[in-house]
């Protein structure tokens, strides 16, 4: 590939005490690519995303995001990325418009430009009637779309989506992925984690993590060929061996019974 690299990770290690969450990660992500970041719960995905988005520093190794070092220039990284997390991330008691303005202002957009942008976005999403409704009145699918729109509002170079489609109906998921494609077409890199393996098929390339290591990284087609599998789900089950044998099938989107990832998110 001759595309520009926007994320480059080299020998990245992250330890919490004696626990190694990320064990020597090496990979690159290219501009405008949809990069699927898969792994069972507890495999270390969230830790890696937190480092790449400037929330956490690597113990050793190097991660460069949008040209900035995750260890020393997290503030610069933050200006160049968008982020949408698995938990719902809009303010439920604010209106659609207020939410958009808030994030626009936080990302340093100027008000006149922002107002024009809001008009475009609402039109595109067919959201005009919701402009002054508070978020808690909106159905989950719409909220999720809005959250994504806000994550790319400031046209970042990379957008991180941490399980963006959890609990969303199939039709909305479909529409959501159309939005992801549109975003990638605007040359914004999409870095996405998911538990839905059918979604993994939509990615340009997929990496699979297991117990802190990246155990596979390639296009979905190539992975299926290598592992002689019908689907990415089959590949996933073959290589991402869970720590306990009695776990329910991974990849159905169900989280029941799975060991939770060490909760390092959202704490301040």
């Amino acid at each position, binding site marked *: 590939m001759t595309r520009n690299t926007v994320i480059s990770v080299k020998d990245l290690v992250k330890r919490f005490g004696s626990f190694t969450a990320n064990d020597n990660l090496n990979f690159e992500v290219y501009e405008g690519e949809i990069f699927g970041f898969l792994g069972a719960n507890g495999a270390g995905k969230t830790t890696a995303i937190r480092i790449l988005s400037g929330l956490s520093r690597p113990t050793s190794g190097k991660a460069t995001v949008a040209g900035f070092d995750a260890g020393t220039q997290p503030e610069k990284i*933050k200006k160049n990325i968008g*982020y949408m997390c698995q938990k719902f991330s809009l*303010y439920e008691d604010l209106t659609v418009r207020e939410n958009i303005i*808030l994030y626009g*202002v*936080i990302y340093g957009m100027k008000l006149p430009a922002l107002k024009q942008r809001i008009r475009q976005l609402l039109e595109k999403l067919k959201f005009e009637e919701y402009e002054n409704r508070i978020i808690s009145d909106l159905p989950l699918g719409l909220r999720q779309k809005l959250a994504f729109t806000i994550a790319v509002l400031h046209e970042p170079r990379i957008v991180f989506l941490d399980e963006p489609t959890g609990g969303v109906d199939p039709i909305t998921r479909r529409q959501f992925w159309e939005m992801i494609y549109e975003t990638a077409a605007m040359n914004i890199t999409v870095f996405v984690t998911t538990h839905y393996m059918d979604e993994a098929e939509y990615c340009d390339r997929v990496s699979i993590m297991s117990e802190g290591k990246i155990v596979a990284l390639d296009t979905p087609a190539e992975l299926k060929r290598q592992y002689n599998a019908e689907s990415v789900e089959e590949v996933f089950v073959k290589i991402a061996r869970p720590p306990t044998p009695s776990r329910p099938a991974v990849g159905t989107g169900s989280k029941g019974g799975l060991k939770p990832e060490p909760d390092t998110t959202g704490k*301040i």
Partner: protein
Amino acid sequence: MKRFLGFVKKEFLHIFRDYRTLIIIFGIPAAQILIFGFVVRTDIKDAGVAVLDLSHDEITQRLTNKIFSSGFFVNDGNLLNYNDIDVTFKKGNTKAIFVFEENFGSNLYRKGRASMSIIADGSEPNVATLITNYTTAIVNDFNRELNKDAVNSVLLIQPEVKMFYNPELKSHFMFVPGVITLILILICALMTSVTITREKEFGTMEVLLVSPLKPLQIILGKVTPYFLLSFINITLILILSWIVFGLPIKGSVVLLLFESMLYILMSLSLGILISTISKTMQQAIFISFLGLMLPTIILSGFIFPIENMPKVYEIVSKIIPPSYFITIIKGIMIKGTGITFVWKETLVILFMTLLFIGLSVRKFKIRLQ
């Protein structure tokens, strides 16, 4: 700066959109001031009093009749000796007992003076004070009547007031400083800890942390609205208590507001600290109520005098910040003291503020590493 202001604006939107928050911030203080004030201002009517008449002469009879015909008291029985006093009080109905000494009448005419005791139940300080004041006035009035009849000598009945159970009647007029102390720590610590944990619970905190907003800006943005509202609040409480009860501020208003600001800052940093150790809003509310509300009410000297407490509680009351602020605010409002008398307490609160901020920053850094 624009980012920060945008964020502060959002925080105000949260507050004004949620009427419950507004009720807590402005409704509760007003209600508390009025309720406490109403209790203090209650006129006594038909208060149960008993008489221990050791003299049984014409004068004591006249005085007793005068007291009961005033309309403030109802006769709750006649006692036979001193031993009955405690028993009578413990039954609960009797708020005060009037004791006439032996040979009351003859003492009055021969020696020119006789003494009576007004023994009030100090466990209800406000009622006790009112009763003693009313009775003293009635007795003085009776003195004047007597002296009109007497030609030469001055006759004098000396009422002697005794308070049972709480001799110093500490809690008089304490309620305004107490309510201010309580309200400020409640609003600041409770509200900040809840509003910060709410962002954690809804997942918005993560999004904020990933944004170009610096962590310090996020915290300041969350805290600024509450700082402003608390400041408006204390001003309103002071104006309200001045208009309704005529409670003056004897000391410097500027000093009072300055000390309040410091106390608000302390409470806010305490709220931030609580938010760093609690994961959910419920936890934050629980810690704030159990850890702050109760000690403030019980151990800060707001209602119960610290001097009367067992040693252990006295030590606890030394640890909680409201006790210091109550000393400061009482001093300034009621006694009119200046900074020279409250600088030690001020330093303690300042030190606590820095301590709480330091602890929060440390916890915060560990989480972010």
